[in-house]
């Protein structure tokens, strides 16, 4: 396999133009001749960014799951649900398809993202040669599922807004909404900061 960096080729991250940088040096200097964006062989400081964002996301993960995400009030019923108790409640109401969906989007996906990104960044940091195809595939899966965890935030926002309109009950967002949205956004930023090419560089460059 011939890598771009070995022959001095870099792709512009804005317009995808392949540009010859001359010597395969790093850090490369220069701007894209087409769109003037700075050119790089690799995402700069990718490891540091991913690790920092992962630590922040992990810190928010705890309040996001421990606190109430939604208050529901319809006389005589009053509930304060965390993400997990919301899933359990759906399950008990025999809405098991929905319970599985919300469980996957709100609990499984964020956990998978935190764990898998930590694994990827540690493996490529150590210059691992273990199953590069599988690791690349794992990263592509993370990119696709990333934003689906926002589901619960939308559901809470919609329910709140719609129920205010109907005025037959009260629904209010709880303190977990913001940290939960924070986890989703931070893990999305973390996976965008990771440079999958580090898997194939075998740690030589990073």
């Amino acid at each position: 396999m011939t890598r771009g960096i070995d022959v001095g080729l870099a792709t512009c991250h804005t317009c995808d133009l392949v540009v010859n940088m001359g010597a395969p040096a790093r850090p490369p200097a220069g701007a894209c001749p087409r769109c003037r964006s700075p050119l790089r062989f690799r995402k700069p400081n990718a490891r540091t960014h991913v690790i920092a964002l992962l630590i922040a996301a992990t810190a928010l993960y705890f309040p996001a799951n421990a606190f109430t995400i939604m208050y529901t009030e319809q006389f005589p019923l009053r509930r304060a649900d965390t993400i997990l108790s919301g899933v359990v409640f759906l399950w008990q109401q025999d809405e098991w398809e929905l319970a599985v969906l919300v469980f996957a989007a709100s609990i499984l996906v964020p956990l998978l993202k935190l764990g898998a990104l930590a694994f990827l960044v540690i493996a490529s940091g150590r210059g691992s040669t273990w199953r590069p195809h599988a690791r690349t595939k794992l990263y592509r899966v993370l990119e696709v599922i990333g934003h689906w965890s926002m589901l619960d935030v939308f559901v809470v926002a919609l329910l709140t807004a719609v129920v205010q309109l109907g005025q037959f009950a009260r629904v209010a967002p709880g303190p977990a909404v913001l940290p939960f949205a924070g986890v989703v956004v931070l893990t999305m930023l973390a996976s965008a900061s990771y440079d999958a090419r580090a898997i194939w560089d075998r740690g030589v460059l990073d």
Partner: protein
Amino acid sequence: MDPAQPTPDVAPPPGAVIASSGDVTEIELVLCSYCDAVHRRTQAAGGKTMRCATCHSPLYRGNGDLGAMLAVTITATIAFFVANTLPLLTLTSQGQQTRATLWRAIVASYDSQLPFVAVALTLTLLVVPAIELGLLLWLLVPLCLRTRPAAFHAVMAILQTLRPWRMIEVFFLGVIVAVVKLSGLATALPGWGLFGVAVMSFSLAALASFDQGALWRRAEELAR
């Protein structure tokens, strides 16, 4: 799943722009964004995804039909208006019927001292899609008429920044979950606005399957 052929180890002269536009005689090279392998760009049959021979990740797509992209964008724009004007869902409780359009829901949450909810809904379903669709039309209409759109580079850069934050398909699923959850409190039925959200999700997803490089190539062609 047909991998592009890797190129021989011949480095082109320094300073040369390799994969420049339209010019068929030039060697067009592509670097895999997942493993940095160098490939020669081959003519991909319409809509087909070319994959990297080394790591099997998608390299580029063959479909760069600007007219089709414009058609899909127009569909999404019409769906955007449907999604924002017709009710997303209809609630019936104690003989009282409420049609929840997105805009009324935003106003209601703002009035009930829930500005965070109002802002979140406004950004994701009104502001971000409106900017994205507006900018796409701004680019595609002139490009299809073979004139160069103003501020082409800046608009492309904004679109690229917005793309990962597109959440309309998640919102679509969110409305469905909300309808089911509400059915415990009142009679909730999905409305035509939800159909608009669905069409918008699918057309924006379809747009992502086109070769974005086609816009750059057409703009460069016109700049000459």
